[in-house]
Every structure is written in C-alpha cells, then in structure tokens.
C-alpha cells in the first residue's frame, strides 16, 4: 500500500459545484431532497447537515481509511457520519428550533447517503486529505445550491412565502408532495444540462449522468 495519493486538482474539485453536481448530474441524494426539501429553511438545514457529514467523513476516509480492513470501512464511515449529526443538529437549531421536527427522518438519512458510504471508499481513500477536504466542501456547496433553489421554488409556489415570510398567495400546493420533488429535480437537471451545453467547450469530455454508484 505505498501508492501515492492523488494531489489536489482545484479544477476537478470545483467541478463538483456545477459540472459534476452531486444531485443534478450524478443523481445522488435525490430522495431526501424530493421528500424533505419542501421549503427554504428545510433546504438550508439539509445543506448544513450534509456539509457536516460529508466533509469530516471524506477527510476521515483519506486519513485513516486505508489503515482499516476493507470490510470494516463502510461501517466506520456510517458511524462517523452518524456522530456528525450532533453538531449539525445544534447548528440548525440556531436558526429554527423545530426544523428537525418538521423534516422527520430525512436529515438522518443523509448520514447513510451515497457520498459518505460509497464515494468515500471509492475515491476519498486514494486522495490526500487536502483534496478530500476540498472535494467535500465543493460537494456540499453543490448540494446546497440545489437544495436551496429547490426549497425556495417549492416554498414560493407551494405556500407563497420565503423563509416563512408570506409574500404571495399559494399557487400550487401540490409541489410539496414527493412526486413533484422528483419532477422539479428532473427539470432542474435538464436546465443544468442546457446551461452546461451552452458554456462548455467542445474539447472537454462530458461529465455524463451515468456515474451513479
């Protein structure tokens, strides 16, 4: 196990914000967004939770992942991310006391989503800690972008408010149901593809939507 770890490649890390967005391009963490992200506050809370889970787990994986036996690693990552729910809970409590009540089980499910369990053992273990940290931050930012846009759109159309402040009449209450979450995410992904087509140079290889794991 003397292979050299991947060096930091800023361009690749930054790609996780948009070109390889974890939700819209890679197709991960869809369920939690579709069902749990029904307003802006929920989106923010999910983003904070995701940040607190993904960054430590990826750093953990890159620092001591290789030292554990292979079969124990997913378990360890799951346990670490479960522990990281604690700080996430207290940070989210600062902007809304009942936020975790209103979201039910969905923030907890982020702890066993694909990035902490699979991505960490497939990629992060081979990267040096700085790369892993950078990748984690960019993944969390990409997730947060999607979650906040989706949450804002659903809150605005569903109940006519933003961050709990009423600004318009409720137009289309059903957008808070999970199936509208799926459909809206699908359209957001299509728009992301459209923007990518518009600004991408032809020589770059397409990021591809088939890399779900």
């Amino acid at each position, binding site marked *: 196990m003397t292979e050299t770890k991947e060096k930091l490649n800023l361009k690749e890390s930054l790609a996780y914000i948009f070109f390889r967005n974890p939700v819209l391009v890679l197709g991960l963490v869809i369920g939690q967004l579709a069902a749990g992200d029904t307003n802006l506050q929920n989106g923010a809370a999910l983003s904070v939770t995701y940040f607190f889970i993904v960054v430590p787990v990826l750093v953990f994986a890159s620092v001591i992942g290789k030292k554990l036996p292979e079969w124990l690693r997913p378990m360890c990552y799951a346990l670490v991310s479960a522990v990281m729910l604690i700080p996430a809970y207290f940070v989210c409590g600062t902007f809304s006391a009942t936020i975790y009540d209103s979201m039910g089980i969905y923030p907890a499910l982020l702890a066993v989503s694909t990035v902490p369990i699979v991505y960490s053992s497939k990629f992060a273990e081979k990267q040096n800690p700085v790369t892993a940290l950078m990748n984690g931050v960019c993944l969390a930012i990409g997730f947060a972008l999607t979650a906040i846009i989706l949450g804002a759109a659903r809150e605005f159309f569903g109940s006519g408010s933003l961050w709990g402040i009423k600004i318009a009449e409720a137009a*289309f*209450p*059903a957008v808070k*149901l999970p199936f509208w979450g799926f*459909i809206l995410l*699908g359209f957001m992904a*299509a728009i992301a593809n459209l923007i990518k087509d518009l600004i991408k140079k032809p020589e770059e290889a397409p990021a591809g939507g088939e890399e779900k794991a």
Partner: protein
Amino acid sequence: MKENLMFQNAPHVRQSESVVTMMWDVVLALLPVYLMSFFYHGPRSLVLGFCGVVSCTVFSLFGSIVLREKPVPDLTPAITGLIIPLLMPADIPYFVIIAACAVAILVVKVPFGGTGNNLFNPAAVGFASVAICWPEKVFSYPVTMQSIEVFGETTVQKVQSPAYSLALGAVPDYEVLDMLLGSAPGPMGATNILVLVACGIFLIVRKAVNWVSPVSFLASYAVLCVSFPRIGGSAFDALCYELFSGMLIFGAFFMLTEPVTSPKRDFGKLMAGVATGVAVFLFRYFGEFEMGFASALILMNVFSPLFDEACEGVLHVYRHRDSLIRSFKAENQRRKAEKAEKAAAEPVVRVIKKNEQAEKAAAEELSDAALPNDSESFEKQEEVPEENAVSAEDEDIVRQEEPETEEIDLSAENEKSEEEEAVQ
C-alpha cells in the same frame, strides 16, 4: 436497406387513413360531447374547451422552441386540450385547466420526445396532478341545467357526484335514466352516457380506435362489480351506477385507446383492458380518491409493452406449437443419445469451483493423483471473469482425468469456439 427503415411508435399510417384523419375523427367525436355539456351547463363549457386547446398548443410550441426543434403541425396537443376540460366539473376555474395542460404537455410529452414517444397518457397525468392539488375544486360538481357564468366568480350550487356516494357505500339519489341522459352531476363530459357510447361506436366504425380495449375493460370491470357490489339493491342497478358514475365510459373510449400508450396487438389490448379493469376496481374500492381511473391508467401505461411481449410469447407458442413440439422431442432424443454416448465412454469428471484457493488446492491434489500418468496435461477451460463479477452462477471448471475422454471434451470446446467466432 436497414438504414432506410426508421423506428417509429404508433400511430402508424395505413391505407387511405392517416394519422391526421384519425385525429380529426377523434376531434369530431368529441364535439357532440361538448354540445351536450353546452346544453347542460351553458357556454362556459365551450370556453373551457377553447382554453384547453389554446393552452396545450401554446405549451407544445413553447416546448419545441426551448428545445430548438422545428415545430411540427400536430393535432395531438389539441386533443389533449379537448379531453382535459371534459374530465372536470363545468365551473372549474380556468387556471386549473391551464395547469393541467401545462403538466400534460410540458411534463409528459415534451421531455419524452413529443408525439409518438409519450410513455404515459398526457390527459390522465394532467388530470391526476391537478386533482391531487385542488381536490375540493375538481371533485365537487355543479348541478345540471343551470347556466354558469363565463367569467368571474361562479355562484352555481355544488354537489358531490354519484361516484362519491358510491365510495361511501350509499345508493346515489339519481335514477339510472338520469345518469344515462347525463342530467346527474359529474365531470363535464363524462355524464352523457348515451352520447358517449354513440361517439365511441362512431370511432370504432371509422377505425380510429380499436374496439378490443374499451370492451374488455368495461366487461372486466362490470364482472367485478357484479361479483362484489358496494351497494344494496339489485345487481343490475349496482352495475349501472358503477359503470355510469365517474369517467369510466369516457375514459374507455377516449383515453384507454390512445394509440401511443396502449399495447399494439389485439391480444395485448385485451389483456391490458382486463388489467386496467381490475386496477380501476381496486383503486375505486380501496383508494381514498375519486380519480381511480386516471391513476389506474397511468399505472397500466407503465406495463403496456409488457402485455405486447406476453402476447407475442403466447402467440408464438400457439402458432408454432407443432414445430416446437417436434424440436422439443428431437432435443430430448439428442440428449438421450449424448447421455448414452457419455455413459459408454465413462469419463471421470471433477468439478472445481472457480474459487481461487480451492482451485489451487484441487490442482495440487489432482497433480498428486495424476503422478503416475506423467504425459497428461491439464488444460484449464476458464472463462475470463467479468469486470464486476456480476454473474451469480458458479462457473465450473471441468477437467478430464483420462486421456481417452479428452476427445469429447475437446470437440465440445471446438464447437463453442466456433460459435463464438460466428458471433464475432
């Protein structure tokens, strides 16, 4: 030659009829329904229909502009726009119609590739989505024979439909004849049973739709309703109330038969019709919603090619039963002969799992055992393992111990390699 052939989903063009004439037939058959609802509810129904057509057409144009495709003159969005208002009460606000049309065109049709590619019935999905969103608006119906204001607030008296009282287990307080003529409250276009049946017969005669799926659907639903009636009274009354309430008849002729999403073969259509009938029955009896038909139709659209495939399989067996039986017998005989041959040769075969360690141990064991026969060589007949190690079956490695039997094995191997070459 093959390059000239293009894959295209139904509707297919045949003889003097074309897709366009089929679509015009459907439009023509929908007009009497609109006239009847004009008679019962006043001019608002016509304005609703106009609104539906315009918004569907505009949305499909919008879709083709965003996707930078050349807009094709196409009647199907207009038909969707005509069908959607007919499923709703006559005093429905206009924005509900526009929302339903937006969902039907922008979510169901455009992303999947437009006409001929939609996997779900657009009208059913549009209706189901607005019904989930505004159930109190979609499922309370105005009483008939009262003209409704075209614009502004409607002041008409609203009641629940017979389908709702059936779901509660009560006998609807309308005569069967009322329901036949359409004076019972209900969706704008789905109450005039006689007119609907006449339109359906017109479509069938014009061959715009196939008779198999509506008939099988209604028959299977009727059988289920008579077997498990929800209300007391005679079976005939129960049957009439069940069939004439909601949008079953309308859906059977205008939505179930949509050429793109229904199966292509008659036998498949029959199976799909029966399955839809069962699904509608279950959704109506156990679901908490009145829109059993739309949900059941969406669910059945998922499986419609499956019905085609199943029917293909059944028909294949039926048509070629003689030759299949013959080939089966021949195969059996061949196997018996092979067995006899093998038994005569009496090979000693050892089966070793692909597990590496076991393989190594077994190899050592074998070589120990084979020490007296020095000339022998072991050939591994091993397939290249797949990258993901997907296949769950064990790949067995067969080795021959005695030199005489090698011929059989080699011949088998040769055959295999020849086949592979042929494939390549």
